[in-house]
């Protein structure tokens, strides 16, 4: 069989995503994994416009549009109301961008995860407010130029490191936390299969590459996504019931190689790149240490 992922589609063609949109692939894979009996709640984000204007829908599952900060709360309400009606077999999915997750929606997300509803929260992370025209978010990485962190004469790119929401979710003790990218759909689908075995909140952060906002040609979306993993910039991990497992890429590359493909990093000098490489190394060490710690039998 040449098919490494399910062939059934729940996202129809004819949507209005940009050329080479990573967020669209993320949705396509998530629905392949979860299937027809799924309800998706989407806040203000690229995905609020990707289906197209009324009367169009692009998903073959119900999609609830919500205000920006409402994803976590809306999936809480959906979950409980469906359970009351005996629809426990419905998958309830929040599908929000990084702004809607790391910034304006963090409180709502954290509340929903803490209350422990049986829901999935997929953060499609394109590292900025892409739908509004590429502004900086808390999830934008160090060094990136955005329209609100223009380089200008002062070399005024984003000076802070990425707020990694998956790490926050791990710290909060969410029963299932994972990271994934669109370059490895088999891995994402496997993670969703693992996640659905857990009755409780599940959080997956999917790096969703964005040619429009990261300034690379659209055909490179999967390649950039792959390099994000191979360079260690976006490590893939799975945190399940307190145990962390970090994927070791079969091939590794330097951070420079990942950065050099994207216009948003084109202003960085050797010093900046070295600093980023150092940060990536440190974060990987931290994750591997945590992996070792959590593998130990508990008290």
């Amino acid at each position, binding site marked *: 069989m040449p098919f490494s992922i399910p062939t059934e589609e729940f996202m129809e063609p004819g949507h209005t995503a940009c050329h080479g949109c990573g967020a669209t692939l993320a949705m396509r894979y998530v629905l392949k994994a979860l299937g027809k009996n799924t309800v998706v709640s989407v806040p203000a984000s690229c995905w609020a416009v990707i289906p197209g204007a009324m009367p169009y*829908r692009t998903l073959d599952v*119900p999609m609830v*549009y919500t205000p920006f900060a*409402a994803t976590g709360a809306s999936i809480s*309400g*959906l979950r409980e*109301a469906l359970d009351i*009606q005996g629809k426990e077999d419905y998958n309830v999915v929040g599908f929000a961008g990084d702004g809607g997750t790391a910034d304006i929606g963090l*409180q709502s997300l954290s509340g929903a995860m803490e*209350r422990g509803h049986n829901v999935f929260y997929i953060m499609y992370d394109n590292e900025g407010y892409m739908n509004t025209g590429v502004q900086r978010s808390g999830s934008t990485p160090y060094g990136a130029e955005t329209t609100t962190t223009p380089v200008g004469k002062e070399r005024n790119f984003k000076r802070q490191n990425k707020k990694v929401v998956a790490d926050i979710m791990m710290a909060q003790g969410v029963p299932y936390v994972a990271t994934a990218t669109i370059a490895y759909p088999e891995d994402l689908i496997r993670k969703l299969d693992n996640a659905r075995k857990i009755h409780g909140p599940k959080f997956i952060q999917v790096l969703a590459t964005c040619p429009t906002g990261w300034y690379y040609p659209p055909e490179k979306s999967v390649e950039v996504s792959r390099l994000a993993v191979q360079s260690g910039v976006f490590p893939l991990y799975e945190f399940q019931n307190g145990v962390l497992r970090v994927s070791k890429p079969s091939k590794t590359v330097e951070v420079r190689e990942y950065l050099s493909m994207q216009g948003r990093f084109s202003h960085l000098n050797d010093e900046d790149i070295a600093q980023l490489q150092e940060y990536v190394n440190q974060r990987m060490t931290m994750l591997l240490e945590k992996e070792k710690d959590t593998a130990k039998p508990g008290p």
Partner: protein
Amino acid sequence: MQSAQRKYNAILTGNDAVAVGAKLARVGFISAYPITPQTTIVEKLAEMVANREIQARYVEVESEHSALAATFASELAGIRSYTATSSHGLLYMHEMLHWTAGMRLPVVMSVVNRALGPPWNIWTEQTDTMNQKDTGWMQVYCESNQEALDTILMGYRIAESEKVMLPLMSMEDAFVLSHTSEPVSIPDQEEVDGFLPPLDLKFRIDTNNPMGYGSYSTPDGPFMELKKDMIESMKNSKNTIREVTRNFAEAFGRDYSGLIEEYAMDDADYALIASGTLASTGKYVVGKMREAGRKVGLIRLRFFRPFPDEEIVKATKNLKGVGVLDRSVSYGSSGSIANEVKSSLYEKSSIPVTGFVAGLGGRDVRIEEFEKMFDYIEKGKTGNYFIGDREGN
């Protein structure tokens, strides 16, 4: 009016009364965030859920925005849903108010009217809900704990009417109703079930019928038509309100007479329009003045949305002057109710209208201040007056 043909069978605070109302309405989903003076409503409901007196899920969210977001989503999944808030909490919900109404979801919410800071002030004032008048929610201002209970039952019936399909907020004055006990007649569950059928949301979420709920529209899309439909439905809701209050009177013996209540208006020359518990004091003053031979009356505004413009025109037709009492402020303009009354009367009546702003931050509006307002109305003083401040107005 409100002659309780049924015997009182309980003594309840306003907040307990609305919790009982939500229970009798068989709400299946409750989500709320604490704020004084709303908290005892949801505490009571949480207790009912814990004791299985009510078949509902209670979701303790982390903000009011989330409270209404969860309530919105649950209603969309087809479950009759309820929330309650007050003051700053209501303001924090503002975005979700528009969203819920725009999605045409018949949620009912209790709001305890409380002042807005700074400075912090937990006492009653209507600026919080007046700020929400353009959100597409119906608004009812209750005068008694009984009315607060009954309005939850009528509220769901009105909101869920196929001709309406808009959410409704029912108000109680902070502390004056919310925390004050009054005798109340609690109807039997069976009677309520006969009056209020289960929710049957036609467009509830169903994976066999995938749709985009909310979607987006370009200027050439149906955006204006959808808004027009909301305007029409809000207008049509007036008939539904009249019909439902009539049905309620038949079923339970308490007649709330539609969108407004007229008190001693039959041969009145002058009247004051008031809402909430200020209307109660107003009625008392009217009674006293009537004894002194002055032909005054009171119009109690129950609904502010939809605005009862026809009722106001009709009720003021034979008056020589009318005053409007607002317990809210709109900086740079007159009182919100006064503005709407004037707009309703424009080209339909030439009676002078006097605007009053009083009772802000829960300050008592005293009998002599009501008398002063009637004096102003009788003297034909038009314009707007700030009543009861320390400068002696």
